[in-house]
């Protein structure tokens, strides 16, 4: 398979102005992301996985290291982000939110709205085009956020704990939806989560991060057929393995903070 994104020794240090401290968030991440894969990033909180996502999105500068993205022919932006807090524009309707990117690129109105209709069908929100975000449930808002990111036609979709603020039922529904949309759109998904269950259900590969400073502890391939079920035997085994590995890191970071 072709590599779509290559990270070489990406590091990031935060300078805390008030205390003059330097916190190493990422300690050298090297990783090849394959075209079309569903890649999961998990690790203890504060391990820098979200920071890495922001760097890939171009929203943060990497402190050190190199980032190579296989460019699209038209030079269009290659990534699109879905945020945990949805980040929908409250003053725009569902349709207006989805066309934000194409509108910024001056795609003609008729065309961008026709494209948006296709995305609205993809996320099953037909009939809600003219609702405002506050008139939607959390699950619907996150679908709109996904459609808005897809409207720019990026090769790589970045997810920053997209289901973390949803209730358990909605989360299950959206996990299934995400896999379906990933299969239909054939995009590369890079997905940050702290829910190991999601890693097992969604991922082709799971990248385990160490506690701060975040480094790659292990890359676990998930060779399980889809659709997966969290109650399946092999899924349960993998979940058990991942929790064990994460627990080591959490313990290590607690020890480092002198909490045990």
């Amino acid at each position, binding site marked *: 398979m072709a590599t779509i994104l290559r990270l070489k020794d990406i590091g990031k240090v935060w300078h805390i102005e008030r205390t003059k401290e330097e916190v190493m968030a990422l300690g050298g991440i090297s990783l090849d992301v394959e075209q079309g894969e569903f890649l999961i990033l998990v690790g203890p909180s504060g391990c820098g996985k979200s920071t890495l996502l922001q760097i890939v999105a171009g929203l943060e500068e990497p402190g050190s290291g190199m980032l190579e993205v296989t460019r699209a022919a038209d030079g269009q932006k290659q990534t*699109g982000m879905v945020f945990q807090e949805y980040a929908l*524009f409250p003053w725009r309707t569902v349709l207006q939110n989805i066309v*934000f990117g194409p509108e*910024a*690129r001056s795609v003609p109105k008729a065309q961008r709205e026709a494209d948006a209709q296709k995305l609205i069908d993809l996320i099953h929100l037909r009939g809600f085009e003219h609702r405002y975000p506050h008139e939607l449930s959390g699950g619907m808002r996150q679908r709109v956020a996904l459609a808005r990111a897809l409207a720019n036609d990026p090769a790589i979709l970045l997810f920053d704990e997209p289901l973390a603020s949803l209730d358990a039922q909605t989360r299950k529904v959206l996990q299934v939806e995400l896999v379906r949309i990933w299969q239909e759109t054939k995009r590369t998904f890079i997905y940050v989560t702290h829910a190991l269950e999601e890693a097992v259900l969604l991922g082709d590969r799971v990248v385990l991060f160490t506690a701060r400073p975040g480094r790659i502890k292990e890359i676990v391939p998930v060779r399980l057929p889809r659709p997966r079920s969290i109650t399946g035997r092999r899924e349960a085994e993998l979940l058990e393995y991942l929790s064990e590995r994460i627990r080591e890191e959490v313990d290590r970071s607690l020890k480092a903070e002198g909490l045990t």
Partner: protein
Amino acid sequence: MWRRYRPLRIISPVAFLVIWEGVVRLGEVNQLIIPAPASVLRTMIDLTIDGRLPWAIIASLNRVLQGFIYGSLLGIVLGLLVGWFRAVEDAVDPLVAATYPIPKSALFPLFMLWFGLGETSKVITILIGVLFLVLINTVTGVKAIDPVLLKAARDLGANQRQIFTKVVIPGALPNIFTGLRLGAGMALILVFITELEATKAGLGFLLWESYQLLLVKQVFSCTIAFGILGILSSWMLQWLERAVCPWKRV
């Protein structure tokens, strides 16, 4: 049913007026100081028929509208720039911080010296009062925009100009309207104060003249007219906000 109609909301003010009318008619209070509601209404009708009240309202509204419109526009434009551009903030903020605490009415004498005794000094006093309130609330509105929205806009490919027009301006609108509502109240206060001096026209002038002649019913009439202007301005702003911010239910 009770919850929806809440009849006390009508009964209470009506009862208040009835009791007031009754107490005055029974001769419990001096009619020269507190006239009965019915006689005030009579006076208002007389003042309307002889044209004094409508003309006074028109003269005051003219000053209020000019001051409010120019002050709001300036306040919104300046507020957006101060809120968004660090350099503009650094240049303007100290000036605002130093002049904001001055009661705007206290600037009126200076403005009369500088701009003459005509309409200009009155309009500028109102303009300044409105400007500060709209400016400060607009700045707050820009700063209150959720940073994740700016991030999302950037991620979706918006350039700096597009972020300003498509995120900063709509994001600040709710606070801008807060500023406009406060500004409208301020404009009415200031028009009254500026009409105490150097004019023979306006609601403030009529009220003050009536007081000096001890025409208490006329004083009441003007006070009520001011109140009605206040209510109308707040209704109009509410209507405007509904039209401009349909995503907010106000």
